[in-house]
């Protein structure tokens, strides 16, 4: 895969073809069965996982510096997992944190992010959604301010707002341009419907609609009207991935 925008030179070599980075995930979760499912899913995606079952254990493990990503449940018995995040942030630790919680109100979400969480996922969730979020957090550091994006055969000029596919210009509506830009900033990364709704369309809730799929379908046809080449592939049931290589 040719990725011109992501600076992956300092990252460890990808373990599997689709994973540019392999994360070391510290999961702080007091529910053993959920912890096990998350661990299996993350390991299947190529990450290494350690599990801590309470606040003290979690804090100790986080301080060891092993983890490149923390996944913290807010409800750890009677304790609030956010206290771990706050403590770490006070100590100057900036490891990305994904907060998972059964508390879904906007206020809870805001307090989760204020405490230093980088993303907030509400239970019940699909473990594949969690896996995609972990991957997105890993890549967040590589986000670019470049004005030109190129992924495989796709080129995007963010200033002139022009897209070329295989050298040929592609006409896109503004909403399609916005959508493609999101994918081109995350080449090869799994992008879930929830992530698209939140980040591209600013919907802070899950719309019960298949609009996302329709939008993706439209974008696919724009990129390749003949239908021979699928640049945005479906990933299991959870979302999509830009696959611009040959």
């Amino acid at each position, binding site marked *: 895969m040719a990725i011109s925008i992501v600076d992956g030179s300092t990252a460890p070599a990808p373990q599997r073809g689709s994973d540019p980075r392999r994360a070391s995930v510290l999961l702080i979760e007091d529910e053993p069965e959920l912890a096990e499912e998350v661990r299996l899913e993350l390991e299947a995606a190529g990450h290494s996982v350690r599990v801590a079952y309470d606040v003290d254990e979690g804090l100790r493990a986080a301080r060891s510096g092993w983890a490149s990503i923390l996944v913290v449940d807010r409800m750890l018995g009677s304790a609030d997992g956010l206290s771990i995040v706050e403590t770490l942030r006070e100590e100057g630790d900036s490891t990305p944190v994904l907060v998972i919680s059964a508390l879904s*109100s906007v206020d809870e979400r805001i307090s989760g992010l204020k405490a230093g969480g980088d993303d907030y996922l509400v239970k019940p969730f699909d473990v594949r959604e969690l896996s995609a979020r972990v991957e997105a957090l890993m890549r967040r550091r590589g986000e670019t301010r470049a004005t030109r994006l190129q992924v495989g055969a796709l080129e995007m000029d963010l200033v002139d707002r022009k897209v070329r596919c295989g050298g040929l210009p592609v006409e896109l509506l503004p909403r399609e341009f916005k959508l493609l830009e999101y994918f081109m900033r995350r080449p090869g990364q799994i992008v879930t419907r929830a992530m698209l709704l939140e980040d591209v369309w*600013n*919907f802070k*809730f899950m*719309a*019960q*609609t298949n609009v996302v799929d329709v939008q993706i379908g439209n974008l696919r046809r724009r990129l390749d009207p003949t239908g021979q080449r699928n640049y945005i592939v479906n990933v299991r049931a959870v979302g999509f991935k830009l696959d611009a290589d040959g």
Partner: protein
Amino acid sequence: MQTVEVFRAPAFRLALAFCFAVSAATAAAFGVIYLQVSNADVQRVSAVLVDEAAKSEGDSDEQLRRALELRLTRDIRRLDYVALFDASGAKIFGDVPAVPSIPVDGAAHIVRQQLLPDSSGFEPALFVARQRPDGAVVLFGRSLREVYDLQATLLTVLAIALLPTVLVILAIGAFFARRASMRFERIHSAILRIMNGELHSRLPVGREGDDVEKVARAVNLMLDEIERLLDQLKSVGDNIAHDLRTPLMIARAKIARALDEETDAEILRPILNAAVSQIDRASVAIAAILRVSAVENGALGNRFTDFDLGAVCAEVVDFYEPLAQSKSIEMTVDVRGPAPMRGDVDLMREAVSNLVDNAIKFTPEGGTVRVEAETIDGLPRLAVSDTGRGIPPQDRARVFRRFFRGDGDDVPGHGLGLNIAQTIANLHGFQLTVEDNNPGARFVMAPMAKASLGLVRAAE
């Protein structure tokens, strides 16, 4: 109600205390009058007697005797006592057999039991004994019988006057106590009924307009709200049970069947996939239900900013347009100038989305969905209309209820979208109503009338 309870009632005790206070005050006033009147009489008689005794000082025995005799003969009512005793205490003259046991000092003294001159009995009398220069003792006295009779009469009159006062106060106290007690009893039994599950019962409210009445009215309003919430909770509970149980039951059945019968992975896969999608259905239902309460519990106003409702409409239409196109539905947005408003832009986007989503769902192929935003009298107003089958008049109030599904609804959904939209509208002081679009439905979100807005604020 039993009589005993009347007397135990706090209101009656209060009346009783009041009665005692009034009686005591009245008795005290009467007592002062009584003392003043009776004392005045005794004082006057004393003064006369002391004066006469003093005057007799200079008289010779003969003069004194004549004066005393004259006095006795004039005393038709037999009220006066006069006597003269020699130095040894023997009576020289008069109608008193012996010197009464009072000091011989020229001052007035009361003798409780003075033998009557005709020895027929005793009576109270006032005496002044005075020593003459020759050692003899002159005695002047006057019966206090009339004075004491007057005092007794006065006392009787006072007592007779006080008694009705006390009785009237007691009667009034008992009346009000009984009334208050019966009122509280009615309230109490209403509360008992409510506690026993008769949630539609209300506290009795009359026309007194007093504080108890105000409290009762407030409690009734509170009960209305609690009953409404409980009804809602119950229907939500029923619907949650249905929305969660059905998919979980299907998923369970599929998995159990797969476990029992199938060993071939290729046959297992679709069964398990179907089970997973049923569980997903349950998860989405939970998320939607939580969303409603999250919006309802959202602290009003703490994230409010100024934004353009027209721009939000344009965004939402832009988002939904591909979906509309895929159903060959024409989608138009009619935004007449900016429609500035203050609120939570994320929530408002969600409300508009739910309306548009709903409109697209219920519009057949080839139909039209139209979104309008405008400013009328400085207030924003939004309308989403479709050309679907519309909403029959009898359902127009119900479509906003949680989990409402039209009869024979074959359109997928949870019946929560319109409820969420209405909740969000209300949070912003807007009203969401539905009218006929001929054909189709037209949802209008407009600011509530000032009066009803005040009610909503007061209810919060």
